[in-house]
Protein backbone atom coordinates (compact mmCIF):
# COMPACT_ATOMS: atom_id res chain seq x y z
CA UNK A 1 0.00 0.00 0.00
CA UNK A 2 2.63 2.50 1.05
CA UNK A 3 4.84 1.90 -2.00
CA UNK A 4 1.94 2.19 -4.42
CA UNK A 5 0.78 5.28 -2.62
CA UNK A 6 4.27 6.75 -2.65
CA UNK A 7 4.56 6.37 -6.39
CA UNK A 8 1.15 7.80 -7.17
CA UNK A 9 1.47 10.65 -4.72
CA UNK A 10 4.97 11.58 -5.78
CA UNK A 11 3.98 12.01 -9.40
CA UNK A 12 0.93 14.03 -8.46
CA UNK A 13 2.90 16.29 -6.09
CA UNK A 14 5.53 16.87 -8.78
CA UNK A 15 2.75 17.91 -11.13
CA UNK A 16 1.22 20.30 -8.59
CA UNK A 17 4.56 21.79 -7.59
CA UNK A 18 6.08 21.85 -11.06
CA UNK A 19 9.30 20.25 -9.91
CA UNK A 20 10.88 16.82 -9.51
CA UNK A 21 11.22 16.56 -5.74
CA UNK A 22 10.86 13.00 -4.53
CA UNK A 23 9.25 11.59 -1.43
CA UNK A 24 11.85 10.67 1.17
CA UNK A 25 9.52 9.88 4.07
CA UNK A 26 5.92 8.69 4.18
CA UNK A 27 4.07 7.28 7.16
CA UNK A 28 0.59 7.24 8.57
CA UNK A 29 -0.04 9.50 11.53
CA UNK A 30 -1.88 7.67 14.31
CA UNK A 31 -4.79 10.01 14.57
CA UNK A 32 -7.99 10.44 12.69
CA UNK A 33 -10.81 8.11 11.80
CA UNK A 34 -12.62 10.18 9.23
CA UNK A 35 -9.41 10.73 7.32
CA UNK A 36 -6.23 8.74 6.93
CA UNK A 37 -3.54 11.30 7.72
CA UNK A 38 -0.12 10.77 6.20
CA UNK A 39 3.11 12.61 6.88
CA UNK A 40 5.05 13.30 3.71
CA UNK A 41 8.54 14.74 3.42
CA UNK A 42 10.11 15.61 0.10
CA UNK A 43 13.73 15.65 -0.99
CA UNK A 44 13.83 19.46 -0.85
CA UNK A 45 12.75 19.42 2.80
CA UNK A 46 9.10 20.33 2.19
CA UNK A 47 6.78 18.63 4.65
CA UNK A 48 3.07 18.06 4.22
CA UNK A 49 0.14 16.24 5.74
CA UNK A 50 -2.06 14.35 3.31
CA UNK A 51 -5.65 13.95 4.49
CA UNK A 52 -7.25 11.10 2.61
CA UNK A 53 -11.01 10.54 2.73
CA UNK A 54 -12.30 7.16 3.82
CA UNK A 55 -15.30 6.50 1.60
CA UNK A 56 -17.20 9.54 2.87
CA UNK A 57 -16.93 8.39 6.45
CA UNK A 58 -18.96 10.68 8.72
CA UNK A 59 -20.73 12.17 5.71
CA UNK A 60 -18.09 14.83 5.22
CA UNK A 61 -16.21 15.87 2.10
CA UNK A 62 -12.69 16.96 1.26
CA UNK A 63 -13.96 19.79 -0.92
CA UNK A 64 -15.91 21.36 1.95
CA UNK A 65 -13.02 20.93 4.34
CA UNK A 66 -10.69 22.55 1.80
CA UNK A 67 -13.13 25.42 1.24
CA UNK A 68 -13.36 26.25 4.92
CA UNK A 69 -9.64 25.91 5.53
CA UNK A 70 -8.86 28.29 2.67
CA UNK A 71 -11.42 30.76 3.97
CA UNK A 72 -10.22 30.52 7.55
CA UNK A 73 -6.66 31.10 6.44
CA UNK A 74 -7.63 34.15 4.41
CA UNK A 75 -9.53 35.51 7.41
CA UNK A 76 -6.50 35.23 9.64
CA UNK A 77 -7.72 32.29 11.69
CA UNK A 78 -5.19 29.70 12.82
CA UNK A 79 -5.14 26.96 10.23
CA UNK A 80 -2.44 25.07 8.37
CA UNK A 81 -2.00 26.42 4.85
CA UNK A 82 -3.76 24.11 2.43
CA UNK A 83 -2.01 23.61 -0.88
CA UNK A 84 -3.93 21.35 -3.21
CA UNK A 85 -6.71 18.82 -3.31
CA UNK A 86 -7.74 15.99 -5.56
CA UNK A 87 -11.45 15.24 -5.62
CA UNK A 88 -11.31 12.74 -8.48
CA UNK A 89 -10.05 9.81 -6.42
CA UNK A 90 -7.88 9.00 -9.43
CA UNK A 91 -4.59 9.34 -7.57
CA UNK A 92 -5.10 7.56 -4.25
CA UNK A 93 -8.48 5.95 -4.78
CA UNK A 94 -10.07 8.55 -2.48
CA UNK A 95 -10.30 12.34 -2.51
CA UNK A 96 -7.60 14.03 -0.46
CA UNK A 97 -6.11 17.40 0.37
CA UNK A 98 -2.56 18.48 1.06
CA UNK A 99 -1.68 20.94 3.79
CA UNK A 100 1.58 22.10 5.26
CA UNK A 101 2.98 20.11 8.16
CA UNK A 102 3.32 22.39 11.15
CA UNK A 103 5.89 21.98 13.87
CA UNK A 104 4.29 21.96 17.25
CA UNK A 105 2.55 19.67 19.62
CA UNK A 106 -0.79 18.02 19.50
CA UNK A 107 -2.20 15.85 22.21
CA UNK A 108 -2.46 12.14 21.59
CA UNK A 109 -5.66 10.65 20.25
CA UNK A 110 -7.05 10.05 23.75
CA UNK A 111 -5.25 12.76 25.71
CA UNK A 112 -7.66 15.58 26.48
CA UNK A 113 -5.48 17.54 28.89
CA UNK A 114 -4.99 21.27 28.34
CA UNK A 115 -2.67 23.58 30.31
CA UNK A 116 -4.40 26.70 31.64
CA UNK A 117 -2.71 29.29 29.44
CA UNK A 118 -3.19 27.12 26.36
CA UNK A 119 -6.86 26.65 27.24
CA UNK A 120 -7.23 30.43 27.45
CA UNK A 121 -5.66 30.94 24.05
CA UNK A 122 -7.66 28.13 22.53
CA UNK A 123 -10.95 29.65 23.69
CA UNK A 124 -9.83 33.09 22.54
CA UNK A 125 -8.95 31.85 19.05
CA UNK A 126 -12.11 29.82 18.72
CA UNK A 127 -14.15 32.85 19.68
CA UNK A 128 -12.28 34.90 17.06
CA UNK A 129 -13.19 32.28 14.47
CA UNK A 130 -16.83 32.57 15.49
CA UNK A 131 -16.81 36.36 15.39
CA UNK A 132 -14.94 36.81 12.14
CA UNK A 133 -16.83 38.35 9.22
CA UNK A 134 -16.77 35.42 6.81
CA UNK A 135 -18.91 36.97 4.10
CA UNK A 136 -15.97 38.05 1.96
CA UNK A 137 -14.59 34.51 1.81
CA UNK A 138 -17.56 32.16 1.90
CA UNK A 139 -20.79 32.11 -0.01
CA UNK A 140 -23.92 30.96 1.74
CA UNK A 141 -27.50 30.60 0.67
CA UNK A 142 -28.85 30.20 4.17
CA UNK A 143 -30.28 32.73 6.59
CA UNK A 144 -29.99 32.69 10.34
CA UNK A 145 -33.54 31.47 10.88
CA UNK A 146 -32.94 28.35 8.79
CA UNK A 147 -29.33 27.60 9.66
CA UNK A 148 -29.90 25.22 12.57
CA UNK A 149 -32.75 23.42 10.83
CA UNK A 150 -30.49 22.92 7.83
CA UNK A 151 -27.86 21.31 10.01
CA UNK A 152 -30.42 18.98 11.59
CA UNK A 153 -31.57 18.00 8.10
CA UNK A 154 -28.01 17.55 6.97
CA UNK A 155 -27.31 14.95 9.65
CA UNK A 156 -30.74 13.41 9.42
CA UNK A 157 -30.06 12.99 5.70
CA UNK A 158 -26.76 11.25 6.44
CA UNK A 159 -28.56 8.81 8.73
CA UNK A 160 -31.40 8.21 6.28
CA UNK A 161 -29.00 7.61 3.40
CA UNK A 162 -27.18 4.98 5.44
CA UNK A 163 -30.44 3.27 6.36
CA UNK A 164 -31.60 3.24 2.78
CA UNK A 165 -28.27 1.89 1.57
CA UNK A 166 -28.34 -0.77 4.27
CA UNK A 167 -31.13 -2.83 5.73
CA UNK A 168 -33.79 -0.14 5.37
CA UNK A 169 -34.67 -0.30 9.05
CA UNK A 170 -35.25 3.07 10.71
CA UNK A 171 -33.78 3.96 14.09
CA UNK A 172 -36.71 5.25 16.14
CA UNK A 173 -34.65 7.19 18.66
CA UNK A 174 -32.96 9.14 15.85
CA UNK A 175 -36.35 9.93 14.36
CA UNK A 176 -37.34 11.22 17.77
CA UNK A 177 -34.08 13.14 18.09
CA UNK A 178 -34.54 14.97 14.79
CA UNK A 179 -38.10 15.91 15.68
CA UNK A 180 -37.05 17.14 19.10
CA UNK A 181 -34.23 19.24 17.64
CA UNK A 182 -36.50 20.88 15.09
CA UNK A 183 -39.15 21.54 17.71
CA UNK A 184 -36.77 23.12 20.21
CA UNK A 185 -34.34 24.89 17.86
CA UNK A 186 -33.26 28.19 19.42
CA UNK A 187 -33.32 31.39 17.42
CA UNK A 188 -30.08 32.58 15.88
CA UNK A 189 -29.16 36.20 15.22
CA UNK A 190 -25.98 35.83 13.23
CA UNK A 191 -24.46 32.98 11.27
CA UNK A 192 -20.88 32.15 12.12
CA UNK A 193 -18.18 29.77 10.99
CA UNK A 194 -18.57 26.71 13.20
CA UNK A 195 -15.56 24.43 13.41
CA UNK A 196 -17.68 21.43 14.29
CA UNK A 197 -15.02 19.34 16.03
CA UNK A 198 -12.94 21.72 18.16
CA UNK A 199 -10.94 20.85 21.22
CA UNK A 200 -7.96 18.95 22.58
CA UNK A 201 -6.45 16.71 19.95
CA UNK A 202 -7.73 18.83 17.11
CA UNK A 203 -5.30 21.71 17.19
CA UNK A 204 -1.54 22.16 17.02
CA UNK A 205 0.12 24.32 19.65
CA UNK A 206 3.49 25.41 21.00
CA UNK A 207 2.63 24.61 24.60
CA UNK A 208 1.12 28.02 25.28
CA UNK A 209 -0.52 29.24 22.10
CA UNK A 210 -2.63 27.75 19.34
CA UNK A 211 -0.74 27.40 16.07
CA UNK A 212 -3.52 25.89 14.00
CA UNK A 213 -6.93 24.34 14.35
CA UNK A 214 -7.03 21.01 12.54
CA UNK A 215 -9.73 18.56 11.46
CA UNK A 216 -12.01 20.96 9.63
CA UNK A 217 -14.19 18.34 7.97
CA UNK A 218 -17.23 19.17 10.10
CA UNK A 219 -16.93 22.93 9.62
CA UNK A 220 -19.98 24.77 8.36
CA UNK A 221 -21.94 27.98 8.75
CA UNK A 222 -24.32 28.02 11.68
CA UNK A 223 -24.71 28.67 15.38
CA UNK A 224 -21.36 28.80 17.20
CA UNK A 225 -23.00 27.55 20.38
CA UNK A 226 -22.61 24.14 18.77
CA UNK A 227 -18.84 24.42 19.26
CA UNK A 228 -19.03 25.61 22.87
CA UNK A 229 -21.41 22.83 23.87
CA UNK A 230 -19.28 20.31 21.98
CA UNK A 231 -16.31 21.26 24.13
CA UNK A 232 -18.27 20.88 27.35
CA UNK A 233 -20.03 17.60 26.73
CA UNK A 234 -17.93 15.84 24.11
CA UNK A 235 -14.34 16.51 23.07
CA UNK A 236 -13.48 18.51 26.17
CA UNK A 237 -15.57 16.53 28.66
CA UNK A 238 -12.48 14.98 30.23
CA UNK A 239 -10.48 18.18 30.12
CA UNK A 240 -12.33 20.06 32.82
CA UNK A 241 -15.77 20.19 34.40
CA UNK A 242 -18.71 21.80 32.62
CA UNK A 243 -18.65 24.67 35.08
CA UNK A 244 -14.94 25.24 34.51
CA UNK A 245 -15.49 25.34 30.75
CA UNK A 246 -18.39 27.74 31.04
CA UNK A 247 -16.45 29.98 33.38
CA UNK A 248 -13.55 29.95 30.93
CA UNK A 249 -15.80 30.91 28.01
CA UNK A 250 -17.20 33.80 30.05
CA UNK A 251 -13.86 35.05 31.31
CA UNK A 252 -11.86 34.82 28.08
CA UNK A 253 -14.48 35.37 25.39
CA UNK A 254 -17.45 36.91 27.17
CA UNK A 255 -19.54 33.98 26.00
CA UNK A 256 -22.37 32.95 28.30
CA UNK A 257 -23.38 29.35 27.73
CA UNK A 258 -26.70 28.97 29.53
CA UNK A 259 -28.24 25.73 30.71
CA UNK A 260 -30.84 25.63 27.95
CA UNK A 261 -28.29 26.24 25.22
CA UNK A 262 -25.93 23.65 26.65
CA UNK A 263 -28.74 21.11 26.79
CA UNK A 264 -30.02 21.80 23.28
CA UNK A 265 -26.61 21.76 21.62
CA UNK A 266 -25.55 18.67 23.54
CA UNK A 267 -28.54 16.86 22.07
CA UNK A 268 -27.59 18.23 18.66
CA UNK A 269 -23.97 17.14 18.93
CA UNK A 270 -24.79 13.63 20.08
CA UNK A 271 -27.41 13.39 17.33
CA UNK A 272 -24.86 14.58 14.79
CA UNK A 273 -22.32 12.07 16.11
CA UNK A 274 -24.80 9.22 16.04
CA UNK A 275 -25.72 9.96 12.42
CA UNK A 276 -22.12 10.47 11.35
CA UNK A 277 -20.89 7.32 13.08
CA UNK A 278 -23.44 5.21 11.29
CA UNK A 279 -21.55 5.76 8.05
CA UNK A 280 -18.72 3.63 9.41
CA UNK A 281 -20.97 0.60 9.57
CA UNK A 282 -21.42 0.73 5.78
CA UNK A 283 -17.76 1.40 5.15
CA UNK A 284 -16.78 -1.56 7.34
CA UNK A 285 -19.12 -3.83 5.41
CA UNK A 286 -17.91 -2.64 2.03
CA UNK A 287 -14.60 -0.97 1.40
CA UNK A 288 -12.72 -0.74 4.69
CA UNK A 289 -12.94 -3.72 7.07
CA UNK A 290 -10.75 -2.02 9.68
CA UNK A 291 -11.67 -2.55 13.34
CA UNK A 292 -12.19 1.15 14.04
CA UNK A 293 -14.88 1.29 11.38
CA UNK A 294 -16.78 -1.57 13.04
CA UNK A 295 -16.47 -0.05 16.49
CA UNK A 296 -17.51 3.46 15.49
CA UNK A 297 -20.38 2.13 13.41
CA UNK A 298 -21.78 0.01 16.22
CA UNK A 299 -20.74 0.77 19.79
CA UNK A 300 -19.97 4.48 19.39
CA UNK A 301 -23.04 5.03 17.26
CA UNK A 302 -25.23 3.33 19.87
CA UNK A 303 -23.58 5.25 22.70
CA UNK A 304 -24.44 8.53 21.02
CA UNK A 305 -28.01 7.47 20.29
CA UNK A 306 -28.34 6.62 23.98
CA UNK A 307 -27.04 10.04 24.94
CA UNK A 308 -29.62 11.69 22.69
CA UNK A 309 -32.36 9.63 24.29
CA UNK A 310 -31.13 10.34 27.81
CA UNK A 311 -30.94 14.09 27.22
CA UNK A 312 -34.39 14.20 25.65
CA UNK A 313 -36.12 12.19 28.29
CA UNK A 314 -34.44 9.39 30.16
Amino acid at each position, binding site marked *: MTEAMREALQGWLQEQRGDSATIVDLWRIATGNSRANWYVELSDGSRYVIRVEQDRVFGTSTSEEFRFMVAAGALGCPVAPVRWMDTTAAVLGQPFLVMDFLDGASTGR*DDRSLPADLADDFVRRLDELHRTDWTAQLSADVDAAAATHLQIERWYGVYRAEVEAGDGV*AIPLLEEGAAWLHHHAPSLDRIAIVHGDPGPGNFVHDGHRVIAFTDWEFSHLGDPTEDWAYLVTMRGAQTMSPEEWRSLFQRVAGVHLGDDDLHYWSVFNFFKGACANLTCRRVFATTNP*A*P*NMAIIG*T*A*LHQTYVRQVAALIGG
Partner: protein
Amino acid sequence: MADPTDAELWRSVDTTVGDVLLPAIPDDQPWARAVAVQLIGLARYAARRPGDRTTDRVDELLSVLDALAANEIIAAAWNGERSVAAVMVATGRALAEAVTRTDDPGAEVRRVLRPVVVRHLDDELGVTSSLVNAFRGRLDD
Protein backbone atom coordinates in the same frame (compact mmCIF):
# COMPACT_ATOMS: atom_id res chain seq x y z
CA MET B 1 -12.82 -34.22 16.79
CA ALA B 2 -15.29 -31.58 15.73
CA ASP B 3 -14.23 -28.52 13.81
CA PRO B 4 -13.14 -25.56 15.95
CA THR B 5 -16.01 -23.45 17.20
CA ASP B 6 -16.32 -19.78 16.38
CA ALA B 7 -15.45 -19.00 20.00
CA GLU B 8 -12.24 -21.03 19.76
CA LEU B 9 -11.27 -19.32 16.54
CA TRP B 10 -11.87 -15.86 17.98
CA ARG B 11 -9.87 -16.77 21.08
CA SER B 12 -7.00 -17.69 18.79
CA VAL B 13 -7.18 -14.26 17.15
CA ASP B 14 -7.35 -12.57 20.56
CA THR B 15 -4.40 -14.45 22.00
CA THR B 16 -2.23 -14.30 18.92
CA VAL B 17 -2.67 -10.59 18.34
CA GLY B 18 -2.30 -9.78 22.04
CA ASP B 19 0.58 -12.04 22.97
CA VAL B 20 2.55 -12.31 19.75
CA LEU B 21 1.83 -9.54 17.27
CA LEU B 22 1.17 -6.53 19.50
CA PRO B 23 4.43 -6.85 21.46
CA ALA B 24 6.28 -7.04 18.16
CA ILE B 25 4.92 -3.72 16.92
CA PRO B 26 7.36 -0.96 17.86
CA ASP B 27 6.22 2.09 19.81
CA ASP B 28 6.95 4.32 16.83
CA GLN B 29 4.09 2.64 14.95
CA PRO B 30 1.19 3.99 17.06
CA TRP B 31 -1.45 3.48 14.40
CA ALA B 32 -0.58 -0.19 14.02
CA ARG B 33 -0.60 -0.63 17.80
CA ALA B 34 -3.98 1.08 18.10
CA VAL B 35 -5.45 -1.11 15.37
CA ALA B 36 -4.11 -4.25 17.05
CA VAL B 37 -5.86 -3.37 20.31
CA GLN B 38 -9.07 -2.60 18.42
CA LEU B 39 -8.83 -5.95 16.64
CA ILE B 40 -8.54 -7.77 19.96
CA GLY B 41 -11.63 -5.93 21.17
CA LEU B 42 -13.45 -6.89 18.02
CA ALA B 43 -12.48 -10.55 18.39
CA ARG B 44 -13.71 -10.63 22.00
CA TYR B 45 -16.98 -9.00 20.97
CA ALA B 46 -17.44 -11.51 18.16
CA ALA B 47 -16.77 -14.39 20.54
CA ARG B 48 -19.34 -13.46 23.15
CA ARG B 49 -22.11 -11.59 21.41
CA PRO B 50 -25.48 -13.30 21.57
CA GLY B 51 -27.53 -14.17 18.52
CA ASP B 52 -29.60 -11.65 16.62
CA ARG B 53 -32.46 -10.52 18.87
CA THR B 54 -34.29 -8.47 16.24
CA THR B 55 -37.25 -10.83 16.01
CA ASP B 56 -37.89 -10.84 19.76
CA ARG B 57 -37.60 -7.07 19.93
CA VAL B 58 -39.92 -6.47 17.02
CA ASP B 59 -42.43 -8.87 18.57
CA GLU B 60 -42.30 -6.87 21.79
CA LEU B 61 -42.78 -3.60 19.90
CA LEU B 62 -45.68 -5.14 18.01
CA SER B 63 -47.33 -6.04 21.30
CA VAL B 64 -47.00 -2.45 22.46
CA LEU B 65 -48.29 -1.05 19.18
CA ASP B 66 -51.25 -3.42 19.33
CA ALA B 67 -51.97 -2.37 22.90
CA LEU B 68 -51.82 1.31 21.94
CA ALA B 69 -53.80 0.96 18.72
CA ALA B 70 -56.46 3.35 20.00
CA ASN B 71 -53.90 6.05 20.65
CA GLU B 72 -54.27 8.63 17.88
CA ILE B 73 -50.52 8.97 17.43
CA ILE B 74 -50.08 5.22 16.98
CA ALA B 75 -53.12 5.06 14.71
CA ALA B 76 -51.59 7.72 12.46
CA ALA B 77 -48.09 6.24 12.54
CA TRP B 78 -48.83 2.56 12.02
CA ASN B 79 -50.86 0.89 9.30
CA GLY B 80 -50.79 -2.51 10.97
CA GLU B 81 -48.00 -3.94 8.81
CA ARG B 82 -45.88 -6.30 10.90
CA SER B 83 -42.55 -6.43 9.05
CA VAL B 84 -39.39 -5.32 10.84
CA ALA B 85 -39.04 -2.24 8.63
CA ALA B 86 -42.69 -1.24 9.07
CA VAL B 87 -42.62 -1.64 12.82
CA MET B 88 -39.48 0.43 13.20
CA VAL B 89 -40.80 3.15 10.90
CA ALA B 90 -44.05 3.27 12.86
CA THR B 91 -42.20 3.37 16.16
CA GLY B 92 -39.98 6.19 14.94
CA ARG B 93 -42.94 8.17 13.62
CA ALA B 94 -44.78 7.75 16.90
CA LEU B 95 -41.82 8.84 19.01
CA ALA B 96 -41.18 11.79 16.71
CA GLU B 97 -44.76 12.94 16.95
CA ALA B 98 -44.98 12.40 20.69
CA VAL B 99 -41.90 14.48 21.41
CA THR B 100 -43.73 17.55 20.15
CA ARG B 101 -46.97 16.86 22.05
CA THR B 102 -47.98 17.66 25.60
CA ASP B 103 -51.37 15.91 25.47
CA ASP B 104 -52.38 12.46 26.75
CA PRO B 105 -51.62 10.51 23.56
CA GLY B 106 -48.12 11.97 23.53
CA ALA B 107 -47.62 11.16 27.19
CA GLU B 108 -48.81 7.61 26.64
CA VAL B 109 -46.34 7.01 23.82
CA ARG B 110 -43.53 8.36 25.95
CA ARG B 111 -44.64 6.32 28.97
CA VAL B 112 -45.36 2.98 27.28
CA LEU B 113 -43.61 2.69 23.92
CA ARG B 114 -40.46 4.70 24.44
CA PRO B 115 -39.08 2.76 27.44
CA VAL B 116 -39.20 -0.45 25.40
CA VAL B 117 -37.12 1.13 22.63
CA VAL B 118 -34.64 2.53 25.12
CA ARG B 119 -34.35 -0.83 26.90
CA HIS B 120 -33.59 -2.57 23.63
CA LEU B 121 -30.78 -0.10 23.04
CA ASP B 122 -29.47 -0.57 26.57
CA ASP B 123 -29.43 -4.33 26.04
CA GLU B 124 -27.44 -3.85 22.87
CA LEU B 125 -25.02 -1.50 24.60
CA GLY B 126 -24.49 -4.11 27.28
CA VAL B 127 -22.89 -6.24 24.59
CA THR B 128 -21.07 -3.61 22.54
CA SER B 129 -19.81 -1.24 25.23
CA SER B 130 -16.53 -3.11 25.66
CA LEU B 131 -15.72 -2.09 22.09
CA VAL B 132 -15.58 1.54 23.19
CA ASN B 133 -12.73 0.73 25.56
CA ALA B 134 -10.88 -1.10 22.81
CA PHE B 135 -11.38 1.90 20.56
CA ARG B 136 -9.70 4.02 23.21
CA GLY B 137 -6.81 1.60 23.51
CA ARG B 138 -7.96 -0.26 26.61
CA LEU B 139 -8.99 -3.88 26.93
CA ASP B 140 -11.37 -5.31 29.48
CA ASP B 141 -9.97 -8.24 31.43
